[in-house]
């Protein structure tokens, strides 16, 4: 990693402030760094706070949810405390985002070529024709057949896979430094998902764009990202290199997730579900949030909340018992 990371999230805490000034914390003290050109995955189940964390970086938090504390440093500048117009100037040329459902993220009454051209015109100061040429070129690079003609299509005239390519073309039109992806292939068929993931990987390599990639699919994160954070109930429970975490998890939740997911390459591996279900956001347990479902939990786990600490070289886990549970080297 270079001396200054591209993105540095420190103690990010998100929540809802109620009328009586009480606070419900949804994401609690999340720390991570993303280096330039890095591909960083965040996995977790629904309600883990992975999408909210991403939306906080993009300044797209839903109404009512706010940053309660912490910072999001982008190239040394804190996005949380930056004035609104400063953040708007970053959105597009520096930080771009692609969403799960392209149909709801695209403007239904605007031709897709114009939508792609909008950001370059605004941020790169391109003229109408130049911007249109760039839009067609971006469409060509995302593998859209017959881009010059398709540029005049409206989103509803395109298939799901093509729409997702349009959104990628839009996001990358100003060659951003950081691309935020929120489950970008979940709504796509497998063969199309495969194409889109490869495309993203290739384009980001070409432009040196860093990725923060949120998904619930362990296979997708393995094929897309190098670095990984696992989130559970609003906090990061494990962080490390994807391949190393998958081969040798150091948090009971990560292990549980890997044991419960069907793995195509291990057809005889018996699926073991994690007992119980994640805590309600309004009713999180004291102590470790995973303790009530954890087979390894000891008394201490129910009382105090474990911090994210180094457990191996280049690996952090938030578990008091990690050293005891995972002492043995994997077979």
């Amino acid at each position: 990693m270079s001396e200054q990371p591209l993105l540095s999230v420190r103690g990010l805490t998100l929540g809802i402030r109620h009328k009586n000034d009480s606070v419900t914390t949804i994401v609690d003290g999340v720390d991570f760094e993303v280096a330039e050109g890095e591909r960083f995955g965040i996995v977790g189940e629904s309600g883990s706070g992975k999408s909210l964390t991403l939306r906080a970086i993009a300044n797209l938090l839903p109404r009512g949810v706010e940053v309660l504390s912490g910072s999001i440093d982008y190239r040394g500048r804190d996005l949380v405390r930056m004035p609104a117009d400063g953040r708007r100037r970053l959105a597009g040329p520096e930080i771009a985002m692609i969403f799960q459902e392209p149909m709801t993220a695209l403007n239904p009454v605007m031709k897709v070529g114009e939508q792609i051209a909008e950001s370059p015109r605004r941020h790169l100061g391109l003229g109408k024709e130049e911007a249109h040429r760039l839009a067609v070129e971006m469409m060509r690079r995302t593998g859209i057949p017959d881009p010059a003609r398709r540029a005049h299509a409206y989103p509803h005239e395109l298939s799901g896979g093509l729409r997702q390519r349009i959104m990628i073309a839009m996001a990358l039109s100003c060659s951003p430094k950081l691309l935020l992806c929120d489950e970008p292939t979940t709504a796509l068929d497998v063969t199309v998902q495969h194409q889109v993931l490869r495309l993203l990987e290739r384009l980001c390599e070409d432009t040196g764009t860093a990725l923060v990639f949120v998904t619930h699919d362990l296979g997708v994160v393995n094929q897309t990202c190098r670095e990984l954070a696992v989130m559970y109930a609003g906090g990061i429970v494990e962080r490390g290199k994807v391949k190393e975490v998958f081969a040798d998890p150091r948090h009971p939740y990560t292990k549980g997730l890997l044991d419960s997911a069907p793995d195509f390459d291990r057809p005889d591996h018996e699926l073991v579900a994690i007992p119980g279900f994640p805590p309600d956001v309004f009713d999180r347990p004291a102590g470790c949030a995973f303790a009530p479902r954890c087979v390894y939990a000891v008394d201490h786990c129910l009382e105090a909340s474990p911090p994210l600490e180094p457990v191996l070289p280049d690996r952090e886990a938030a578990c008091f018992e990690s050293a005891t549970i995972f002492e043995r080297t994997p077979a």
Partner: protein
Amino acid sequence: MSTAQTPPAVLRVSGITKAYRVGRGLIRRVAGAQHNTLKALDGVDLELRRGEVLALVGESGSGKSTLAKILVNSTTPTSGTVEEAGLKAGATRRERARRVQMVFQDPYSSLNPRLTVGSMLAELLTLHRIVPRKEIRQESIRLLGRVGLREDVLDAYPSQFSGGQRQRIAIARALAVRPDVLVADEPVSALDVSVQATILDLFRSLQAELGLSILFIAHNLAVVQHLSQRVAVMYLGRIVEVAETAELFANPRHPYTRALIDSIPRMSAESVNDLFDIEGEPPSPFDVPSGCRFHPRCPVAVDRCRREDPALMRVGAAHQSACLLAEDLAPYPGAQKAEEAR
């Protein structure tokens, strides 16, 4: 395994076609199509054997959900027949409905939010006269126990439960009328991974302990591999390959199946090979290609594939493929790799 005696079919569909007439309005113009019929299913033959889990896989628009709807009699086929083993001639519509039950993808929209779980089950048990009125409560508790839920669930509303629990309730509802066949349309794809495994377990126990025959519709091949005994692959309204699960994944004999397998996001290995990387997306069912309907995306298509429409043919003991080149396809590299791993 394939040489063992094949169990009898509980459900057999033959030559099923489902065409939707599409008007001359907006939809037709958007699709830019010449025809005004959409063939969601085009000559499907399939049998579900007693006590098996048969997986039906394919991408959106392949017709798998349409086939499910026909099986549970919520829509009628344009042509073709559905035979149910042991169904007496002149059986009532209600009797037919009882025998094949369905579990839907989204447990948030498939349960009536205004009925308690107890009244939902009671309604079915009464309507189909499964048990005498006095025993309804007892039977409901038994059903809930069967799917791993406790008695106190009876007085609760669906909104009080998580996705996994709702799916259990939906399964209990399907079981209430003592069906022979369960049609499950993507029953775990709306659920989180850690919950998914418990529901897959439940399906497995229903098969093992009740001897239910299950048609399991899914797009996640890793899930299919873990649960089913046989797999049927659909593409644009046709079945293009059927085989026993292990055989299908080790030795796929249709290029589309190979492409599907190679598209699985792998958790431990890298992609097996790039040969069957296919371009583009499934074409619109308004505009089915000539010859083999997969040929525009097929990496090994030859001239013949553009002209001849291949039927599902036997390529192995219990293996059928609808590919003109099925006999000539190179050995599947994934198969060798799997062998080496063992």
